[in-house]
């Protein structure tokens, strides 16, 4: 049969269904971990670019430029192979023996998180700059402290602008996790490759993998749209 035996996707004894679902969950896990790491780091980088001194600002700018100019797969390799080199050096230095390894999950999360942080910092910076200066002045003029001003005026306003960009960043992270397969971590990409190689039903399993990613990205898209609609309450349709 040309399109592959669909039973292979099922949950029976011949079926790869269960392991595919597990792999999909692993994709989600790496994505969430990387995205959150990127969010934390991205916030710091955005803050450095907005309010830091000249040195910090230059460093943050350089960070963004570098991480956006280098292929993601190289960064992942760097963390994976490089991480192994580092751990090996430390290990042998400390007197331990034997092959040293670094978790594909950790390498992937750090690498993708670092890349995502660069993109997220740009989104956050743009959102901050888009907050109407008048509203910020109105907050300052009633005597708000900088923290209160941020909490009550800047953050809520910036969020509306930031959500679409953050949605894009999240989608990118999901797709980048496929690259972590090169480390051997059993997420969706790796799992479907293994299944395809074993059963020689390449089209079937790559299609299944594509379907898994489409599921995750579609559901994510709906969630972000919902959040965007909610944050727009009070704004006239189509912007201010």
């Amino acid at each position, binding site marked *: 049969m040309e399109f592959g035996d669909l039973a292979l996707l099922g949950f029976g004894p011949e079926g790869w269904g269960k392991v595919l679902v597990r792999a999909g969950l692993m994709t989600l896990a790496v994505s969430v971990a990387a995205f959150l790491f990127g969010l934390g780091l991205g916030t710091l980088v955005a803050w450095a670019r907005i309010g830091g001194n000249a040195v910090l600002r230059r460093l943050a700018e350089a960070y963004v430029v570098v991480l956006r100019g280098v292929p993601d797969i190289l960064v992942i390799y760097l963390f994976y192979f490089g991480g192994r080199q580092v751990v090996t050096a430390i290990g042998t230095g400390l007197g331990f023996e034997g092959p040293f390894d670094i978790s594909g999950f950790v390498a992937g999360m750090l690498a993708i998180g670092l890349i995502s942080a660069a993109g997220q910092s740009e989104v956050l910076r743009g959102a901050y700059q888009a907050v*109407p200066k*008048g*509203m910020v*002045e*109105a*907050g*300052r*003029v*009633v*005597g*708000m*402290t900088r923290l*209160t001003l941020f909490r*009550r*005026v800047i953050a*809520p*306003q910036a969020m*509306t602008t930031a959500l679409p960009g953050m949605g894009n960043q999240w989608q990118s992270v999901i797709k980048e996790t496929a690259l972590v397969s090169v480390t051997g971590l059993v997420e969706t990409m790796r799992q479907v490759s293994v299944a395809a190689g074993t059963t020689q039903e390449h089209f079937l399993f790559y299609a299944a993998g594509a379907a898994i990613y489409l599921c995750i990205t579609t559901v994510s898209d709906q969630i972000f749209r919902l959040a965007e609609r909610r944050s727009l*309450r*009070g*704004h*006239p349709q189509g912007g*201010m």
Partner: protein
Amino acid sequence: MTDAVETKAVGPALSITGLRKTFGANEVLRGIDLSARDGDVISMIGASGSGKSTLLRCIPMLEIPDAGTVTVGEDSLSPKGARLTRAEEATARRMRGHLGFVFQNFNLWTHRTVLQNVIEAPLFVQNRSRAEAVDEATALLEKVGLAEKRDAWPAHLSGGQQQRVAIARALAQRPRAILFDEPTSALDPELVGEVLKVIRSLAEEGRTLLIVTHEMGFARDVSSRVVLLHQGQIEEDGTPEQVFANPRSDRARAFLSGHFDRTR
């Protein structure tokens, strides 16, 4: 006559001495001395670029003057540098708490309802209780004629309505003085009247007001004092009769004849 306004028997509500400000190559304020007692209603008029808005914005330190001192009630600030130090910022915040400021472009927080706009400062800056803040806000919204709009979004209100909300927001701080930066300049002509009516009623209550405006008729009828600014300096400072009917300087005469409806 005055309600919920702190009046001190001693000292002016607000005073400015030796204020200077330069933007780039442009010296916008060249040494301003001005003081306002409680109950003064001062209109500031002058040509575009004369520095009136800059002067007003310097009072709550929205712009940092290059030289001079601003005193609000018991707090005084003479900024030393281009940015405020932490101590100066704390003083500035205290001063701002005693000043209401109404912007030309209203600057309502669009992500909050009308009522939420008015209770924001009382809750988050002055730490009053929610019940107290809401009660007072409701009364203020009634006073400016917008009680039924308390749960509306600013974006759904007309310019005149938004500005009235902005005035209620300023009043909610229980300020010693209220500063108005061209409050009607951004409004369509038919909406100007409703805002001027509210400001007039505040003046009649005996509140201390500082209004930068182009509305000459309003300035003449409502103010207790008129200050004319020209190229960063005070050209005239007197009662409306003195300034409008008998301007002393040629420049004032030129400005007024160009801007005033002669038939009034």
